[in-house]
Each structure stands twice: as structure tokens, then as C-alpha cells.
């Protein structure tokens, strides 16, 4: 089953963030709770964790691109 990695809620004021770095590449194994991508808001850089264990199947937003809250950043193929 596929599990999306979503851009989380960032409060009332921030609607989007920039992808800073992918900490995993497609095909890598990931564990639930493990950071997979870091994103930068105007205030702070945050690491977003894998919602499930499995393999990183697809990266949908490249480094330096902007993504909105709720956007799917990547897909994990659950173990």
C-alpha cells in the first residue's frame, strides 16, 4: 500500500515551504518516523518524517521547489 509524505500544517500564516534537501533517495528503505525530507519556511527549517515504513517509491517535489500545505511530497511503498 502506498503512503503519501505530506507537507504538514504550518499554522495560519504559512501556506507553503521550500524543499531544502531530500534525506533519502528513491529506492531507499525508510522507517516510520525517520526524517525523509527537510523543508524551509520563512522562519525555520523542519524535517518531515516518514508516515510509514517501506521503500521510497517516488519523489514528487524537487529540491528548491515550493510545495503547499497538504501537497504530496513523496510516496512510500509500505512494507
Amino acid at each position, binding site marked *: 500500500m502506498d503512503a503519501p509524505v505530506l507537507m504538514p500544517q504550518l499554522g495560519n500564516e504559512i501556506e507553503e*515551504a521550500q524543499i*531544502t534537501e531530500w534525506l533519502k533517495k528513491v529506492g531507499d528503505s525508510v522507517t516510520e518516523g525517520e526524517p525523509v525530507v527537510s523543508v524551509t519556511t520563512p522562519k*525555520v527549517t*523542519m524535517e518531515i518524517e516518514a508516515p510509514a515504513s517501506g521503500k521510497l517509491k517516488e519523489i514528487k517535489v524537487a529540491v528548491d521547489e515550493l510545495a503547499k500545505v497538504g501537497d504530496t511530497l513523496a510516496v512510500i511503498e509500505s512494507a
Partner: protein
Amino acid sequence: MTVAPAPANPLDEAVKFFPLGGEGAPAALLHGFGADHLTWLANQQAVAGAAAAFAVDLPGHGRSSMDVGDGALRTLAGIVAEAIDRKSLRNLHLIGHSLGAGVALQLADARPDLVASLVLITPPGLGKEIDRNFLTALPRLTTPEETLPLLQSLVVRPSLINKHVAAHLLSQLETPGARQALVQIADALAAGQVDIDRVLSSEAVRVKPRLVVWGEADAINPPDAERISAFGAKTVIVPQVGHLPHIEAARTFNETVVAFLGRRRAP
């Protein structure tokens, strides 16, 4: 990237409260020196899962008044207490980082009726010594080249603080009165060790449930094991993390705080 205007808050002009959602007992998040309510982005969802959460812009910061009086922690706490009173809030869980932890301690001492519990992240008074150079330099920053390395000294992994974060701080420093307010607060912090020692040992503070969270590699306010032990609070020291454990180890921090708040819930 843009930051949308915050919802207007007509109740308070001196101290801005930003609701983060959640239900149950209220919890107020008090940021550190030179920061603002946005510092809690990685934590707000977790805290709002355990309490009715607000982030606060402390006096002299963000969208709050730049009038900080003499800048002392006690003075800042008095201004925040007035704002809490105007909102008719009581029994708040206070979650404070660094400067914000000092304000939380002063609030618990002076107005224990307002405080249910304390989460103190790298609080003043329990570390070896706050880096005076950091306090002196931050209000006087003018260029990205000097801002980035200073802010990166807050963390072990410098990639967490990038040019966007530096630019945000520089834009905040351009708010009229911001630099002067921060200088006032920095001077008062440097002179306030005796007062914070008194507060740390006060009975009003000691009877509150207390959680201390610290980064083991904090270079700005290194933890002092002896002082922390004497304070007698539940303590979590996070390895390989600097002065911003709520950002650098957000998952650990969130789990620790949610568990702490969960135990404080009324049956």
C-alpha cells in the same frame, strides 16, 4: 515564500497571542530571545493535540509592543500576565524556550494562579552561563553574512538554519524599536542572575509540575548538571542537539511534552 498577515487580535495590543488549535487546558508557548511565535512550527500541531495551545509574541518581539520597560524577566512576565488576565485565562501550561523559559519561571513565581505546569527548554539560571556575545551581537546584526553564522551557532546541524531564516530575522530587526528592545532585554538578562536564582528556589515554582528539556551540545547556554539536579524537575537531555531542541529534535521534544501534558490532564 510569503507569510500571510496574522488574524487581527483586538483584545491585546501589547502582547499578541496566536491560537494554534486544540482543546482542554490552555498551553502558552513562549519563544526565545530574538525569535517569535513562528519558532514553534515543528511543535504546534503536537502541542495542540494535548492542550488548547497559543503561541505568544513576547514584548519586544514579533508583532507585540516594543515597549519592554527595563527589559527584566520580571517586567516581561508582568506584561504577559496582564495580557493573560485580559483573556481571563488561568492554570496555563507554560512551555518556554530560553528567554521564554525565564519569563515562565517569573510568571510561576509572581502569579502562581496563572500557571498549571512548566516546560522549561534551556532555561536561564540552570546553565553554566549564557553566551553574552550572542546576546550582544544579535540585536546589532545588519547583513546576511554575519547573521547566518551567528544563528547557526544555535544548532549542531547548521543546515537547519539557512539564508531564509537569516533574512526573516533581519526583517524583524527592522521593526521600529526592535533592536533597542532586544538590547534592553539582553542587558537585563546579563544582570539578572541573582533574581533568577531566587525564582528557581522559590516555593511557588517548586510546587509546580516541571519538565526541563536541554540539548546536550548547547553552545549558547550549556547545561549545568549540578544546578539542574538541584532544581529537582523531570529532565530530558537530548544528545547531539544544541540550543534549539524543539527544532533539532522535534520528534523527541514533541513526544516528551505531549506525555508530560497528558499526565497533567484532569481525569
